């Protein structure tokens, strides 16, 4: 655990943001008065202290989001969650009056947040059980319906400054949970039984057991191995069977064969008497393989859970307007043609057309870029985007499966299904190896049948056990697991099985522009003062005005001002739709906004042609009552590691390409600044996929790096895909690798590591083959004694694992 987070006196004790001058929101925490930045944070801190949870401040390792003032409207909406119709989709009956629901918690930043939520909810009368999952940020709450309502629980969570969304545990999620439980049960059985069998085997190997007892111990081993061979190893048998049915040979065929042969052979020897039994081999083998595969699947599961939190993108409720009456209804009840009202700050529930009102909408969901897009009468809006400025009356045009969002998800599914994959090396080797092995044991058996039929069975068994494909089947997963854990330490999460193997062969890397090569967030590139005021003063005025609004550009001004405490207090702040913001500072009225805000002062606009050096920038004008004071050019900024990453890739002999949905001028500008020579601009999501397929058809193995919903289909279609950690959930769900660190040069690291892992895997496979080539003839000639076979098998596996560990 990292060190607890401390906050200086000038910053809000709760969220760490600077405290604006002239504000006073104190809360006494553990006998020390602390200052907060706003009413919201104060309320949250008070709620935390009142409930005896002040320990949170001592244990947290990351700062929470700034709390928003609780809007009575939002609280009133929560009551709707008590409605039986709405509850139907996510609440389960767990007894007479006991109900259980799954919630996604928003705003969790560290372990202390989880502690805070669990402790607080548990104190509420009527709440029976609360469990928050640290990895998936999901809570399972059980409560007594007669003593507390779900809306009260949700309200309490909001009081602490978090947001809870109920979600219906999808079928897939339930399946995954069951699968995990099954895997764990198999590992448990294999682990428990093999520890016992190994003890008995050591006694047998040591030769200290009386001949009379040997048989008893063999029968005991038989009994203990039975559940391992029949239950724990079942997945191998199943996979082998389905491969054989399809006329293929995969890795599980030799695995399953070795387990069955060693077990059945040992049973025969136990019953008829013979020199050696191989129960220990069966057990060890099953345990080793089950464990490595379980660990391999772990990371994939993690990202799948993150992807499912996507469900919350579309809201569950909307305000329907009918006969001048506003009523809040479940989105499921809406029909095309209904009129809905969306207030500023709300998420739009359906694809719709604006029938009244004027506002800007944040479509970051689709484009990955937080930019206010103006919407007026007749404009189309999409479900999942956020209304920013004014209330909008909308006529519903598409719902559920008919929305743009659902369409993109469908496109993604199709691209994923059509994904070209390179045949995996380990599987190819396994197929050849199995075929060779089967032929060899058959030949050996036949030869011995000829010479000495009494020993034939024993020899065939020895050949199968000595050649035990353990080393071979561990070769790939061990190298992959070691490489994955090394990359995870650097902030690169590998989520699919084939990712590393494919990455090692990549010949071309394709980048998206917005949000990938750039931050996807607007940054002030240039401030052009047009009056006597200095650059700093202009920025401070603008930031003060913007702080009063929730405009997406506000953050860019805030980050441009060095000292947050130097901001001016704004009187009567005002949002002017489609223009900008205004307010009174020091008795003077200032406006900040687009070209139309500066329109009364024509001269200044000509001066600003100087800003032509920033062709793609959004221009924002700061004016007082009589003059234009300054112009700001705001544009997306290129990530610092982008150029280095591109240079590194080129050096490694990999072609670099850029596909973007933006206009050609903007794309050319970015391409030049990071050193990409080949690019295509103005592409729609489907055109990106086509461009990708053209590359693939010419024989390239493509890695795609992206972040937005519009990238998701391309990500799914590329042989291997990398999503930015801060990207949209859909993009993350569609990709094989997630760059948690958002550091583009880690793309190079990932490729280098993948190549090293591929080398190590080849070494491991080579070793496994050499070991078998040496050991098999001896086994076939009957020279391998039982203990030597067991030693050889373990040693060959150990070497493979140790070699893989060099990667870490």
């Amino acid at each position, binding site marked *: *655990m990292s060190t607890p987070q401390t906050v200086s006196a000038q910053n809000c004790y709760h969220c760490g943001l600077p405290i604006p001058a002239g504000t006073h929101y104190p809360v006494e*925490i*553990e*006998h*020390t008065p602390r200052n907060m930045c706003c009413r919201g944070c104060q309320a949250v801190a008070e709620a935390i202290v009142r409930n*005896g949870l002040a*320990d949170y401040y*001592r*244990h947290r390792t990351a700062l929470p989001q700034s709390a928003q003032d609780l809007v009575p409207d939002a609280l009133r909406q929560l009551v709707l969650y008590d409605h039986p119709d709405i509850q139907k989709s996510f609440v389960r009956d767990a007894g007479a009056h006991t109900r259980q629901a799954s919630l996604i918690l928003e705003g969790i930043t560290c*372990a*202390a947040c*989880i*502690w805070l939520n669990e*402790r607080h909810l548990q104190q509420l009368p009527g709440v029976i059980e609360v*469990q*928050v*999952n*640290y*990895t998936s940020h999901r809570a399972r709450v059980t409560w007594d319906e007669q003593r507390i309502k779900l809306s009260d629980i949700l309200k309490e969570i909001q009081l602490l400054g978090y947001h809870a969304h109920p979600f219906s545990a999808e079928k897939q999620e339930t399946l995954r*949970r069951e699968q*995990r*439980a099954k895997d*764990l*049960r198999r590992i*448990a*059985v294999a682990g*428990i*039984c093999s520890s*016992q069998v190994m003890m008995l085997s050591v006694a047998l190997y040591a030769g200290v057991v*009386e001949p*009379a*007892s040997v048989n*008893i*111990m063999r029968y*005991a081993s038989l*009994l*203990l191995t039975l559940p391992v061979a029949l239950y724990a190893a079942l997945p191998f048998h199943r996979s082998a069977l389905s491969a054989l049915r399809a006329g293929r040979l995969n890795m599980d065929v030799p695995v399953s064969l070795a387990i069955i042969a060693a077990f059945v052979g040992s049973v025969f020897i136990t019953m008829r008497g013979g020199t050696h039994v191989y129960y220990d081999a069966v057990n060890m083998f099953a345990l080793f393989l089950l464990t490595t595969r379980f660990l391999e699947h772990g990371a994939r599961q993690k990202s799948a859970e993150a992807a499912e939190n996507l469900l919350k993108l579309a809201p569950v409720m909307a305000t329907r307007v009918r006969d001048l009456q506003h009523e809040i209804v479940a989105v499921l009840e809406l029909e095309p043609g209904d009129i809905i009202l969306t207030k500023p700050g709300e998420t739009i529930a359906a694809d719709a057309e604006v029938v009244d009102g004027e506002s800007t909408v944040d479509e970051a969901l689709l484009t990955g870029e937080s930019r206010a897009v103006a919407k007026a009468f007749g404009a189309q809006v999409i479900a999942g985007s956020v209304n920013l400025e004014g209330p909008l009356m909308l006529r519903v045009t598409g719902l559920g499966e008919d929305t743009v969002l659902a369409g993109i998800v469908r496109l993604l599914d199709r691209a994923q299904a059509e994904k070209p994959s390179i045949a995996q090396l380990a599987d190819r080797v396994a197929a050849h190896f199995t075929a060779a092995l089967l032929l060899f044991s058959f030949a050996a058996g036949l030869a011995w049948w000829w010479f000495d039929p009494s020993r034939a069975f024993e020899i065939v068994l020895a050949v199968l056990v000595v050649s035990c494909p353990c080393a071979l089947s561990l070769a790939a997963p061990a190298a992959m697991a070691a490489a994955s854990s090394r990359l995870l330490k650097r902030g690169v999460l590998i989520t699919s099985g084939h990712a590393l193997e494919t990455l090692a062969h990549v010949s071309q890397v394709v980048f998206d522009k917005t949000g990938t090569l750039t931050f996807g967030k607007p940054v002030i590139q240039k401030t052009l003062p047009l009056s006597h005021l200095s650059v700093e003063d202009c920025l401070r005025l603008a930031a003060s005005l913007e702080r009063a609004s929730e405009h997406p550009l506000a953050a860019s001004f805030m980050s441009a001002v060095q000292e947050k405490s130097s901001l001016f207090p704004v009187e009567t702040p005002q949002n002017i739709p489609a223009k900008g913001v205004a307010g009174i500072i020091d008795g003077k009225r200032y406006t900040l906004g687009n070209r139309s805000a500066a329109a009364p002062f024509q001269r200044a606009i000509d001066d600003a042609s100087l800003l032509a050096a920033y062709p793609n920038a959004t221009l924002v004008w700061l004016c007082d009552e009589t003059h234009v004071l300054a112009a700001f050019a705001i544009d997306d900024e290129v990530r610092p590691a982008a150029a280095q990453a591109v240079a590194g890739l080129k050096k490694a002999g990999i072609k670099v390409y850029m596909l973007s949905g933006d206009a050609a001028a903007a794309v050319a500008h970015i391409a030049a600044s990071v050193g990409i020579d080949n690019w295509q601009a103005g592409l729609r999501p489907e055109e990106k996929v086509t461009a990708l397929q053209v590359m693939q058809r010419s024989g390239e193995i493509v890695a795609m790096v992206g972040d937005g919903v519009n990238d998701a289909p391309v990500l799914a279609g590329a042989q291997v895909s990398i999503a930015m950690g801060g990207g949209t959930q859909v993009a993350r769900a569609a990709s094989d690798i997630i760059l948690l660190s958002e550091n583009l040069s880690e793309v190079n690291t990932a490729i280098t590591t993948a190549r090293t892992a591929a080398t190590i895997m080849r070494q491991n496979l080579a070793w496994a083959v050499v070991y078998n080539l040496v050991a098999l003839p001896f086994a076939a000639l009957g020279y391998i004694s039982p203990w030597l076979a067991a030693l050889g098998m373990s040693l060959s596996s150990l070497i493979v694992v140790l070699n893989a560990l060099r990667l870490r």
Partner: protein
Amino acid sequence: MTPILISLLGLTLVFLIIIVFGIFWAIKNGQFDDLEGPAQRILMDDDDPMIPHNQLRDKDK
């Protein structure tokens, strides 16, 4: 040696069955669902208010 061996092996079997049932119950109960959380949770001292001197700790900083 044989009778004692058989009785010990029988005893082992009984224990094994108990252990397997215990683990299956724990898995079903969701105790293996979150493998990271409990490691972090142990660091949160729920008993802090019961320790008299700890209340001063924040002031000392």
